[in-house]
């Protein structure tokens, strides 16, 4: 039986960050990485850009060197894990083989969920999750194609950008009352909706798809507003769930993902988790939360790896944040933009130019932010929140004019 000191299930950003940190800290130990897809580790986030033709498949690879993993003695197995034997420290694979581990990191990411609706198995209904999905979409999303996008969440909107770039006619159906409800308040969501409509898209919020059917080789999309739409392609982006079916039968504690502590370890010794499949500490709230973004994935992977080597690395928690480019309108969200109890919020809105800044404070510290139409120095919002900078007089200045973000940070750190 094959065994490795460190085994990583998954081949996304968390997995690669962990493998690299492991190799750096433990030059002599064996590292194995198990990838379900039979291609080099790639970035799902880059898929929309394959769709637009901006990059080819190679462009999605997380590391570009041909022998990158070989050179670092990181062994990659293309296999699917079916179950874990935590007692024996064994992974059982679909092929029937098994793999022993010293320490295990689960970084299997998440997969899209299909809502339980009729017709979602018809040809022309796609997710945008794998390279194959992206290729399938690209095949159908030609000039003037009618596309219905189910779900205007974060992932939906990333795909939306790519679909618009394909010059397709796009209808977006979102069950909630606004676009990207998890990263936008009503003001921002509506600004975004208006922006999309100005770009020629049809945006239906508070609307649900009730079912799909085949009509003369095209897809008929029925909705709960009583209308229906004929489409060449339906892209489903209605949510994801962690890829952790294979841990069934273990004692690993699970909520929306594998619950991990400040050291990225699950409740089962020597089993760690990182990235989209893990529910780690939220920097802002101190509670558990899945933050399905690359920065969290790589931080998780890095910290997990350090702890797996016996070093003690403590993670203060990940900051929930996102950035989105929706047909040219760039939005970002950070931390507790909804505001906190006893805190204050402020905002500045230039609806005509689709510029919006919304800040949330606790005392004189920034705890959350939302922006639309702003790209300059937006990382500073993360810096302000995560360094828990006491803003002093700048709190009032920001309350008066929330756009002085960079100044407030620089004044507090440089002057």
């Amino acid at each position, binding site marked *: 039986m094959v065994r490795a000191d460190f085994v990583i299930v998954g081949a996304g950003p968390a997995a690669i960050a962990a493998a690299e940190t492991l190799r750096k800290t433990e030059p002599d130990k064996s590292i194995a990485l198990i990838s379900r897809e039979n291609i080099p580790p790639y970035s799902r986030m880059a898929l929309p850009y394959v769709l637009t033709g901006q990059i080819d498949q190679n462009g999605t690879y997380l590391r570009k060197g041909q022998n990158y993993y070989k050179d670092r003695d990181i062994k990659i197995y293309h296999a699917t894990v079916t179950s874990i034997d935590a007692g024996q420290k064994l992974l059982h694979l679909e092929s029937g083989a098994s793999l022993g581990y010293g320490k295990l990191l689960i970084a299997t990411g998440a997969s899209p969920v299909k809502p339980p609706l009729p017709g979602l198995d018809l040809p022309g209904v796609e997710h945008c999750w794998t390279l194959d999905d992206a290729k399938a979409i690209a095949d159908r999303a030609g000039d003037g194609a009618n596309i219905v996008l189910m779900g205007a969440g974060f992932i939906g909107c990333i795909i939306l950008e790519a679909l618009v770039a394909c010059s397709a006619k796009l209808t977006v159906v979102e069950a909630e009352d606004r676009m990207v409800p998890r990263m936008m308040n009503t003001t921002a969501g509506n600004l975004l909706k208006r922006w999309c409509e100005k770009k020629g898209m049809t945006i239906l919020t508070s609307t649900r798809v009730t079912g799909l059917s085949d009509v003369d080789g095209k897809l008929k999309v029925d909705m709960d507003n009583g209308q229906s739409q004929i489409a060449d392609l339906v892209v489903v982006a209605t949510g994801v769930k962690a890829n952790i079916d294979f841990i069934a039968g273990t004692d690993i504690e699970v909520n929306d993902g594998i619950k991990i502590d400040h050291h990225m370890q699950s409740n089962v010794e020597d089993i760690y988790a990182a990235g989209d499949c893990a529910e780690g500490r939220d920097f802002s709230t101190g509670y558990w939360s899945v933050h399905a973004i690359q920065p969290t994935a790589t931080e998780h992977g890095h910290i997990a790896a350090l702890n797996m080597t016996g070093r003690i690395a403590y993670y203060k928690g990940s900051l929930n944040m996102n950035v989105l480019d929706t047909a040219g309108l760039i939005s970002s969200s950070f931390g507790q933009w909804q505001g906190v109890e006893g805190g204050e919020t402020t905002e500045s809105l230039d609806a005509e130019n689709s510029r919006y800044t919304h800040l949330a404070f606790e005392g004189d510290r920034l705890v959350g932010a939302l922006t639309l139409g*702003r790209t300059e120095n937006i990382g500073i919002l993360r810096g302000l929140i995560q360094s828990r900078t006491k803003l002093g007089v700048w709190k009032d200045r920001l309350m008066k004019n929330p756009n002085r973000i960079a100044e407030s940070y620089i004044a507090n750190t440089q002057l």
Partner: protein
Amino acid sequence: MAWAGKLLRVDLTAGTCVSEPLNMEWAAEYLGQRGLATRYLMNEIDPKVDPLSPENKLIMATGPLTGTNASTAGRYSVITKGELTGAIACSNSGGFFGNEMKNAGWDIIIFEGKSDKLVYLMLQDDKAELVDAADYVGASCWDTEEGIKAKHGDQFIRVASIGATGEKGVKYACIVNDMDRAAGRSGVGTVMGSKNLKAVAIRGTLGVTVKDREKFTQAVIDGKKVLADNPVTGSGLPTYGTQVLMNVINEVGALPTNNHQDVQFDGAHDISGEAMHEPRKSDGKPNLVSSAACFACTIACQRVSTIDRTHYTVKERPEYHKASGGLEYEAAWSLGAATGVNDLDALTFANFLCNEHGIDPITFGATLAAAMELYETGVINDETTGGVKLSFGSAEALTTMLEQTCKSEGFGVELGLGSKRLCEKYGKPELSMGVKGQEFPAYDGRGIQGIGLAYATSNRGACHLRGYTIASEVLGIPVKTDPLETEGKAGLVKAFQDATAAFDSAGICIFSSFAWTLDDVAPQLDAACEGEWSTEKLLEVGERIWNLERQFNLAAGFTGADDTLPARLLKDAAKTGPATGKVNELDKMLPEYYSLRGWSPEGVPTGETLTKFNLS
């Protein structure tokens, strides 16, 4: 290249914004900014129009170097028929507004007509729109700038605006950009106010390119080195700003004091650049906080100051406890020596107010000085002034009257007329110290003869920035001439005037000319702009511009008789200092000046001159 090649025409009556190609034939003849915009104005308006009528136009213009990294290349100018003077007005400002305009892809913006309500122009690259400015009616320049930035959620927007003074018709309202930079003179802000145009807000992201990048890079490096190595631009101005001059000019005996009754001021040191460095008693901190630069400027002459928090002007007003644009020499003189006030904090406060509310400190100080003389001679009294004692030397009179002028209240309404109209109103026109309706700046024509001729012939009324012979007569740049001598001054004035017109039209700051000659400017322009730009060509362009401006003024109704100085400078001899016993001997210089210009003895360009410059 260098030029953006585009002009924005804003019809305030119709509410439209239209892009036009820039007239490149004119650009080849007039370069840009001052010259090119004057060409447009001359072609598009009747010089006889009422400056405040919709028929007048207001032009904002950059030069070809504006927006590049040539040192000091961030300038823009406002060209119009001036309300204070009725003559061609061209007011130049630094800061970061000019660069933003060029970066948005525009060389020139022409405002015409009159809006039926207060508006501002929002210009984001190609996107231009007039926006309702109801929120800013009566707002100060500071509040307007901050308000517009906040409203559009963009701190990178640059704003040039007028205060309530411009809306209410104070005759010497400025257009203030970047909080404390201003197109200050001749009432260009008043014209802007008459058009119901509150502000111009710009965000440019397109970039500026030059013809030959490699050559330009070297020319710019060479130019920066000349500035750095020169004692004035490399050391004097960065350390003291233009305020380096206060003690110097006082010693020369050319610091006009108490409305030009004297030429030396006892309190000169108290209000000098040196004094701005001295720690004050209350908190041990100096007036001066830092030196600041306009866009691309490697000199950094701008003063940033604070007011003593215990001073009577701000003790109860914490909003003025911040740092802001400090005293330049001209403002320190007009608010100080001209009025006999030696209170540095009062002057700094007054300077803040001028920036905040958008009025020209030179004309205000000089007008107050004239009013003080009217008061001290009994022509006006406490009843006229609302009980304020307008005595020379009274800081309280200065700050009280300035606040009234900024608000157009009380006697401030009359001070808002400028000294010419004020003195005429009280039957004492001879007490207005200026030329063509515009007040003198900070040098006395008796102690420095050449500057007297420069004032008398300046196309925008009395002004030091149309031919700064102080450089030669006092500082020895490029050669030292005797300030008390008249011989050779006609040629000196003409040379300065022509070169200055070229500097202004290039988009650079005239202060660079303390170190640069046109020989330093030409290689930068030549590398940046289409065509060939030699020193000779620039002199020709400068002289062409001077003649064009002259043509405008003659058509507006001015004659050679207006090329004169107040009787006080021509008849009342200086009482102290090196110039004791001297008057300005304008009559010895003016005929030669006309002759050198190729003008008739009446001061009219001859046909030959006009043909030479393609002006017939």
